[in-house]
């Protein structure tokens, strides 16, 4: 299972941060050519990101580049350069319609062909940052086979919705739910928006707990300090792992006895419960927990 619990924003014009981007062990790093780069630094950033991606060893961590939109003077040049830099994923900001994705895909394909690269190796993800994009989330998610995920960008969204962000996030619940539902329907990842108040650890944890409960795969983070807390919250608890192991155990037992209705502690074990158990164990393994050791303990 590919984890995308954390996607670390790194401004594309900051060489110092780019050189260290991967050491904090986020699941993905995202070099930004868009909003964190001022207009007079657009070409510098593009050049820096290109060189970082082609020179530095990011140790297998997924690399994502957020390009400028095609409605800006920079989007096309960003694509030209980034296809050659070969990040794993190109992220399009402010996606409104499926056509936005198709337009980007077309340009990527052109460049891939021009470079002699295999078509389709660079994946795509879309940030949805406005009301129209939210309504089109499902079409956007299905717009290309390259699509690996859709992400909410809440700051622009709340402005368009004539409100502002609150700690509880009730104003973005609809957008979160739409995006999440669209991602699940399309079978791709759903990534939550950033939490900007970097020194409010408590507020950040509350928000991560909320989006984890909603079902998001992960969150965009803007400082390395936000990485570990997300991973901690996404890591299954020992109790959850224990329960998952027991579920799989009774299933195995029932299969060998060929019994029909299976129950654990008086509760029926059906398909969704088994799937959830399998996902818990996968996530635990991916989070670095040694399940075999736990299984041994459990068997004892």
């Amino acid at each position: 299972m590919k984890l995308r619990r954390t996607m670390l924003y790194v401004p594309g014009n900051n060489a110092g941060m780019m050189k260290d981007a991967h050491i904090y062990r986020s699941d993905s790093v995202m070099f930004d050519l868009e909003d964190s780069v001022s207009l007079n630094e657009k070409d510098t950033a593009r050049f820096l990101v290109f060189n970082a991606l082609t020179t530095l060893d990011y140790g297998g961590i997924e690399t994502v580049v957020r390009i400028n939109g095609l409605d800006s003077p920079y989007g096309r040049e960003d694509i030209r350069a980034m296809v050659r830099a070969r990040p794993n994923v190109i992220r399009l900001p402010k996606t409104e319609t499926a056509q936005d994705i198709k337009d980007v895909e077309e340009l990527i394909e052109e460049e891939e062909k021009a470079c002699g690269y295999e078509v389709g190796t660079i994946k795509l993800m879309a940030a949805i940052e406005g009301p129209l994009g939210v309504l089109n989330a499902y079409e956007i998610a299905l717009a290309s086979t390259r699509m690996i995920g859709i992400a909410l960008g809440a700051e622009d969204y709340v402005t368009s919705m004539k409100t502002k962000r609150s700690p509880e996030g009730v104003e973005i619940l609809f957008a979160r739910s739409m995006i999440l539902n669209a991602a699940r329907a399309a079978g791709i990842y759903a990534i939550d928006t950033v939490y900007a108040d970097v020194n409010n650890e408590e507020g950040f944890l509350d928000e991560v707990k909320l989006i984890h409960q909603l079902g998001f795969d992960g969150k965009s983070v803007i400082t390395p300090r936000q990485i570990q807390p997300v991973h901690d919250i996404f890591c299954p608890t020992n109790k959850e792992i224990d329960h998952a192991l027991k579920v799989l155990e009774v299933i195995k037992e029932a299969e060998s006895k060929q019994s029909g209705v299976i129950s654990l502690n008086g509760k029926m074990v059906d398909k969704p419960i088994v799937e959830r158990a399998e996902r818990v164990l996968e996530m635990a393994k991916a989070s670095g927990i040694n399940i075999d050791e736990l299984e041994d303990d459990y068997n004892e």
Partner: protein
Amino acid sequence: MSKNAIGREIPEELDGVKLTPFDGAVKHTPLVRQDKGNRQLPRLNKLVDTIEQAVIKSGLQDGMTISFHHHFRSGDYIVNMVMDVISRMGIKDLTIAASSLMAHHDELIGHIENGTVTQLITSGLRGKLAKFVSAGKMGKPVLFHSHGGRARAIEVGQIKIDVAFLGVPSCDVYGNANGYTGPSACGSLGYAMVDAKHSETVVLITDFLADYPNTPFSIDQDLVDIIVKVDAVGDPKKISTGATRITQNPRDLLIARNAADFIVASPYFEDGFSMQTGSGGASLATTRFLTEQMEKKNITASWALGGITSQMVKMHEAGLIKKMLDIQTFDQDSIESIAKNRLHTEIDASYYANPLNKGCAVNKLNVVILSALEIDLNFNVNVLTGSDGVIMGASGGHSDTAIGSGLSVIVAPLVRGRTSTVTENVLTVITPGESVDVFVSDRGIAINPRRKDLIEHFKKVHLPFSTMEELLEKAERLVGKPDSIEFTDRIVGLVEYRDGTIIDVVRQVKALD
């Protein structure tokens, strides 16, 4: 037989032992009360009005050795204040034996140039003074020592201090001094206590004269010759901050987390262990992650040594550390703690780390976390000279705690700016590799191959392990291999290991020639 002063018959000799007849109550003890009728107490007045009077009274002469301590850190006024007076008085050829010197002591350059000071013995040098020495502008090489090494040298008489000028936050008219009372409180006076015990003449300089007796005291009245009251011994804002804050720098936090993960997985992380951390960056931040793990695993430390900061005090108050031994107190919270908490005990530099006394605290230490400017493939550590070869740091307790502890953990980023922290050979060895157990960086952890037990222990532990060679390669891939710094043959500094042997020399930097 002869009659003594009160008319008693006293033999001149008994069983071959010569006897001295009583000759009056104050005859042989000129320092005690001579006139009972005088109610201006005490008669023995150690107080003088000015530093100059103190210098005169101390009998300071050309060629002597004077000492200072560094408990006031960057807020210290004493060194510059005293040296100004001595320089004006025209005394020449002095050796300054300071426990350490800070950047703002660069006023010493003038005193060196005019011949007042001809030698420096110190733990470290910074700023312009350090550059001055690295440039070869001082006649005799500076002798760098560790904190434990200095205490040893003073106790065995290798460093003979003629006059110690010791700034103290408070003392009474008889010289009972402590570090936690008064406007310039600095906490422990651990380094100064050694000087007070072993110097020929002890001058205390204070800005707060306390009522007699100023208890509890760290420096006892019976050691003190002269006392001067001045307006201020230092700048309180620079002597200590309110509470030492844990860094928010993500890289330091990452290193700290790696270090804590390593310590927690090591055999040393057990109930009742002892520890010391540095006061800065990643070293201090390690306490944050250790705290989490200690709470989670229900492990408490029996004691902490050092360099006490508010982080340690917090852990103590939360029941995670039972006792603290304090050679140097870093912030306001810990100064308040040492003043009121009997489980927070002041120790002197000899007790802390003198390798030749009958038992120093570092020998009982399980885990120490230390920083480094450079570390090499042999695990030798440099904390003295920068990547440009210029002196910029201090030996401190680095080599003392590294060898004393069971597990010495060196923390540093693998790359600083454009230079690698890991090098083939460090510029200056302060701490020999045989006393260093593990290097923890942001890009990997290297266990010293000498510690076969640790390597075996960590075989099953999943942490980002590398060899030192791999880390060097990783760093050089990123920043390249720099040209070597060019030095001349001239030796500007001798680095003394804690036992008094010379572990390395510092040479003049050619670019500064």
